């Protein structure tokens, strides 16, 4: 398991699922891939298809429309997959907790491996979360 696990942690390919987000977290996630922060030095790539993904980044609140789609995307992913909830909305629901469109935080719908709170989290915080995910 040691070698397999090492290869897995060294090459995390990221698929980005944006829920009903205000787009701030999306921008911060894209910031991580820009030259200033450069997540590719940890082997992290943004992939277009969920079939290639190792990490599912979820941000924004999950409303009733998104819920089915999130479950569908999670079921379509090939299976060791790590789920990261980004931002206050992804972790808890944030200020939208009492909204009638809110279908529950991400960890009530699919299992979550890491939480990166913040509104929006800084790119440094996202990188720290992913390094912790890759390290442990």
């Amino acid at each position: 398991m040691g070698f397999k696990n090492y290869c897995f942690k060294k090459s995390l390919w990221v698929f980005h699922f944006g829920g009903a987000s205000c787009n701030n977290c999306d921008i911060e996630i894209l910031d991580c891939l820009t030259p200033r922060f450069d997540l590719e030095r940890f082997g992290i790539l943004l992939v277009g298809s969920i079939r290639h993904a190792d990490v599912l980044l979820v941000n924004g609140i999950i409303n009733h429309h998104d819920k089915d789609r999130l479950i569908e995307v999670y079921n379509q992913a090939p299976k060791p997959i790590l789920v990261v909830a980004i931002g206050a909305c992804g972790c808890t629901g944030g200020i939208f907790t009492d909204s009638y469109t809110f279908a529950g935080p991400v960890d009530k719908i699919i299992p979550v491996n890491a939480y990166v709170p913040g509104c929006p989290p800084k790119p440094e915080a996202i990188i720290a979360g992913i390094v912790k995910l890759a390290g442990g």
Partner: protein
Amino acid sequence: MAVNLFYFLVFPGLLFAAITGAFLSWFDRKITAMVQFRKGPPLLQPFYDFFKLLLVKETILPKQGSPLIFLLAPVFSAFGATMAGVFILLPLSNIATGFRGDLLVIFYLLTIPSFSYIIGALASANPLAAVGSSREMKLIISYEFTFLLFIAGIIMKCGQQFDLYSIIQAQQTSSPFIGSISGVLLFIVGIFCIQAKLALVPFDMPEAETEITEGIFIEYSGAAFALIKLTKYIMFFILPALLIALLMNGFRFNGFNILWAVLKLLAVVLALTLIRNTNPRIKIRQAIKFFALWMNLFAVIALVLIEFGY
């Protein structure tokens, strides 16, 4: 028999071509990162990617479509690339095993990966994969004739020799073909054909990530996608090697010439990477026009120049 198996599996074949190709693919990503003022991935990144896909990830089969053909297509593509690699790399490492006409065999073997991608993508019953495979078909139609003209130019240039070994020998006894006007024109044509064969950025419409989300590879995961990665690594080594064999007098493995061989390989890959990093993705119509009009024109001019001895 044992020697042939060794050729296929270890030295110029699967293992050697895959490892060299993986390092070249790291080089490509590192240069891309440097062009974009980034730091880039670590040296062993292609190996991590490959072993992660092969050993860790689950392979998902399509519910509709044909799972058997879906799984066989990557095997065929890896096989075709390895066979082409053996035919290209044996003459390159100065082992005279070629036969008269092996250049045409190489030409056909090099199309097997693209055809396998098309078959596999169509077997996955995904609409985006179907769009990707139709684009790949159009791309093959557009570059294949140009590639044939390119090979015809090389054959004319060395006096109707049809096998790779004599072409390399003809260059090593006199001078490399790239040192003439027609050679330079053929190099330009060849490098764009390779760019299209590798589906690198100006011609990456079959697997456009942002547009049709990896297109022909959209349904592949796990070990099947690892085989596709392997094919890509092998192709990333053997196509520049073919260009070096045809135009830049091949490799010589004695003393100082090893460094020279590595430098030639890195220079061709650097040219491919810089083209990839300084161009946007073009539409399939533009790609067909580019090859059918401009690259064919270049190739025909080169053929005429060769006829008059330039």
